[in-house]
């Protein structure tokens, strides 16, 4: 049964059919899926959701497909837990991690959006899928489209981390490394998308794809005991995840599944690519594009498509943002590792470092609960930390060598 009413322009409100369209042909605004909320409300309850398997499709009524999903049966319901040791290190009372570094199958939140995009692409009759990616999306499309049996073309910037290249190639897509930055890859793909009838998950399938990010917010609310968090810090590249987490909370409230959210949203960006945070800090209506220069390549989108909506959501909720340096990012990754045993990629380092900054600057109070969004695994971006985490202690296979090199030098610890 379908709950999709159609697509609606986020700028001018014109309605379009629920096809492979992504942009309003009148004003170029992006299109958003519109649902039959009364019909969903008549059906969807907390009990129904909780009775379903622990994957993103437990929220199926709020996801944009007509029939049954094709992929993503192991995606979602990632760990959500109280992080006491990180809270102590940051000097706050109550802090939680939502950990998509262990999202299946490719260790980032992109498995959510791609599971939705590919299920919809199949319904729309495509046999070939494609994407422009900073790496995580490439991994997710490569793996899930292999599982779903699509032909696939994946476009990435040529300078990506080895982990992200291997993490795509292993699934044997046609992987195209473009000599340029992500914004250039994206522009090229927009032009390719007009020539070939492929399902570009982040272009012509975008309205459906982006809805998958709501499941991150749904899970946070469900795992908190059916309520929205007070403060939530979200890494921002295109800005879509932040916008959709907020939409997810609002939808749950609209359906009577949670109380009215008292949430404040915060965007975490790298100093070398912070168009959204800059716009918020300057109180500007314009998102000025930048040429990214940061180790956080998964957040290196200089021309963020959802930047305006992310800034709107942040202002609407009284939240904020912080932009952190490359060295703070590395420190953030290490801090999360040594306090919570979670190895996150550079984007997670950005989020931890931004959270620290927002707390230190008293923009997030120390006595209110905070959720930190971890969205990808550290094995994908080893280059960022390999030179700043020390080396193993090398010894001979003898007790003497052990005691001399390890026990005596480290004080027996």
């Amino acid at each position, binding site marked *: 049964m379908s709950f999709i009413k159609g697509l609606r322009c986020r700028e001018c409100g014109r309605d379009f059919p629920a096809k492979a369209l992504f942009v309003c*042909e009148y004003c*170029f605004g*992006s299109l958003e899926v519109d649902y039959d909320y009364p019909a969903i409300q008549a059906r969807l309850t907390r009990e129904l959701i909780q009775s379903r398997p622990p994957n993103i499709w437990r929220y199926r009524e709020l996801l944009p497909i007509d029939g049954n999903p094709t992929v993503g049966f192991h995606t979602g319901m990632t760990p959500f837990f109280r992080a006491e040791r990180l809270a102590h290190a940051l000097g706050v009372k109550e802090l939680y991690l939502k950990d998509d570094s262990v999202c299946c199958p490719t260790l980032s939140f992109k498995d959510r959006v791609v599971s939705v995009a590919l299920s919809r692409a199949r319904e729309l009759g495509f046999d070939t899928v494609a994407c422009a990616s900073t790496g995580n999306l490439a991994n997710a499309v490569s793996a899930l489209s292999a599982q779903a049996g699509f032909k696939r073309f994946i476009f990435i910037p040529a300078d990506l981390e080895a982990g992200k290249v291997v993490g795509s190639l292993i699934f044997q897509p046609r992987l195209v490394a473009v000599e340029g930055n992500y914004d250039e890859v*994206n522009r090229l793909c*927009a032009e390719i998308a*007009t020539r070939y009838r492929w399902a570009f998950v982040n272009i012509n399938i*975008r309205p459906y794809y982006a809805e998958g990010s709501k499941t991150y917010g749904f899970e946070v609310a469900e795992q908190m005991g059916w309520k929205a968090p007070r403060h939530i810090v979200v890494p921002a590249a295109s800005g879509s995840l932040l916008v959709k987490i907020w939409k997810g909370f609002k939808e749950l409230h609209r359906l009577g599944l949670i109380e009215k959210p008292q949430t404040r949203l915060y965007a975490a960006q790298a100093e070398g690519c912070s168009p959204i945070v800059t716009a918020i800090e300057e109180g500007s209506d314009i998102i000025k594009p930048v040429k990214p220069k940061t180790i956080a390549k998964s957040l290196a989108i200089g021309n963020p498509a*959802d930047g305006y909506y992310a800034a709107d959501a942040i202002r609407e909720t009284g939240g904020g943002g912080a932009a952190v340096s490359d060295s703070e990012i590395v420190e953030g990754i290490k801090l999360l590792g040594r306090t919570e045993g979670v190895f996150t990629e550079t984007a997670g380092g950005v989020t931890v470092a931004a959270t620290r900054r927002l707390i230190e600057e008293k923009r997030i109070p120390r006595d209110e609960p905070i959720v930190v969004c971890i969205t990808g695994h550290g094995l994908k971006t080893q280059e960022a930390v390999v030179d700043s985490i020390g080396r193993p202690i090398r010894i001979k296979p003898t007790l003497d060598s052990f005691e001399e090199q390890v026990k005596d030098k480290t004080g027996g610890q």
Partner: protein
Amino acid sequence: MMAITVRIPTPLQKLTQDQPEVTADGKTVDDLLKDLERRYPGFKDRLCDPQGRLRRFVNIYVNEEDIRFLKQEATPLKDGDEVSIIPAIAGG
């Protein structure tokens, strides 16, 4: 007369009789948009808001460079330049 190649995004191809690429003329991007409006009436309305400014989800590139890194609508054009008009797109 200068010949500037303009790549037309799908939503605007109805105005250009389904041509994905057209030739137009102009010393600057602003001139070019005016010339496109002369050749394909209605064109400028779709790209610009009622105050005549480019809509915020329209990206224009001259020889693959975003005009917001150049001189915006005053970006100069020369014979043989290629201009792309592209809606903003998501990603990650």
